[in-house]
């Protein structure tokens, strides 16, 4: 479980996060949604320690991250898996080397053991015949799978995904969403996904946090989000013609 208390972060005169307080449950796919510029990426990067918050606390299973020294923070980071928006695979490494990278850095496994473990997660994310290819030689959807495989290879306790299905076709995006949800359940991890894709919300939104201009505007789950009276949420959800039509059909019924 990850708890966030009164988190504030600004850049210069601009305050991006304005005292966020929320929590993300273990074994659930927690979604952070909001319009572009609402502070989603800053929020996720602050939780990851890539940005130092101006104030507030982030607690990983009750342990306050900012109170820890470097080695203790590193110990927590070793338990974090991250899927970046652009996959962030290492260009000079093959798919297999990318996946084995966290094992090389943090375990004392032999190369054969690392390869075995890498192959287990490669099978888990359904990547076939790609072990020796470079990231530039595989498709965007496959790159996302490699990124997920790299994120879970070290058995993380927390999985962060920054817009994991951006740039993917709707079918592949759904496959990636479902894969993340399956992994969350299978390994019982705390998963936090940053997205503005309403399909993801409908597919896997077990807990949804809606951000508006750096404030927590609403939280709930995927069934509640379509029934809420919160105007900001409904404006966001029904901004696309598809969802407007769905709503019209629901009202007609």
């Amino acid at each position, binding site marked *: 479980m990850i708890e966030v208390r009164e988190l504030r972060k600004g850049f210069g005169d601009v305050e991006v996060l304005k005292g966020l307080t929320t929590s993300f449950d273990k074994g659930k796919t927690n979604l952070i949604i909001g319009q572009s510029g609402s502070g989603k990426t800053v929020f996720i990067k602050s939780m990851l320690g*890539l940005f130092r918050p101006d104030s507030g606390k982030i607690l990983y299973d009750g342990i306050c991250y900012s109170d820890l020294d470097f080695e203790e923070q590193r110990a927590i980071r070793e338990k974090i898996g991250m899927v970046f928006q652009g996959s962030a695979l290492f260009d000079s490494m093959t798919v297999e080397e990318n996946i084995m990278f966290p094992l090389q850095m943090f375990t004392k496994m032999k190369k054969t053991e690392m390869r075995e473990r890498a192959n287990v997660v490669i099978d888990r994310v359904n990547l076939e015949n790609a072990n020796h290819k470079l990231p530039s030689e595989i498709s965007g959807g496959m790159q996302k799978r490699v990124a997920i495989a790299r994120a879970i290879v070290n058995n993380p306790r927390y999985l962060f995904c920054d817009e994991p299905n951006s740039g993917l076709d709707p079918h592949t995006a759904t496959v990636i969403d479902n894969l993340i949800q399956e992994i969350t359940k299978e390994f019982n991890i705390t998963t936090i996904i940053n997205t503005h894709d309403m399909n993801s919300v409908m597919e896997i939104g077990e807990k949804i946090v809606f951000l508006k201009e750096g404030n927590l505007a609403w939280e709930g789950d995927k069934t509640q989000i379509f029934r809420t009276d919160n105007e900001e949420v409904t404006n966001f959800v029904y901004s696309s013609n598809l969802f407007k039509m769905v709503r019209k059909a629901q009202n007609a019924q």
Partner: protein
Amino acid sequence: MTYLHDIGKYFLMIKETFVKPTKGKVLRVLIFKEIDDLIIGSLGIVAFISFFVGGVVAIQTALNLTNPIIPKELIGFASRQSVILEFAPTFLSIIMAGKVGSFITSSIGTMRVTEQIDALEVMGINSLNYLVFPKIVAMCFYPFVIAIAMFLGILGAYIAAVYGGFTTADQFLTGLKDDFIPFHISYAFIKTFIFSFLLATIPSFHGFYMRGGALEVGKASTTSFVWTSVSIIVVNYFITQMLLS
């Protein structure tokens, strides 16, 4: 003020590079890879430039010796002094600021743009140690490149002078050995060693702290080349002043 801020940031980066080290086994592989990319990969161009510039130095010297009182041995002497004191350590380092420096800036800058550096940091890896330290160690071999450049520069001068008909082999070799001060070699390698550190760290600084996209990677490479060259020239002036005057 921006310059002062950047200089301070540069020294903090260097400090950070040497702490929280990466796992030894991984580091060893990275160092060998950097030696291959930065040192071995530069040998061809260094050899080519050194040989021909050495030749040009000899020809220029010969063509300017119009006074018959000046002995032809001067061609060997001038070639040696030019190549050892300035051409190999300084001129080649400026060329390397373009070749190696822009490679370092663009590779680290691309990693920044594509969030690969963020990926390292999320994993709890000291990204500066992982990315910059192996480059600093690899560049410790840079004086060997300069030694090869010195040899090939003088060889080029010999071939151009002797086979170009400007002097005889004996005259050239006599001039080459004339008034030789061994400390000049030490001076050349001392400054080469300092330049190698600048060549590894200044481009890394510009790549690591860049912001933006592909266009900014290009701009960072250009800025890095300018600042590395300026630093080499300024440091060269002060080292020369300290060690030779």
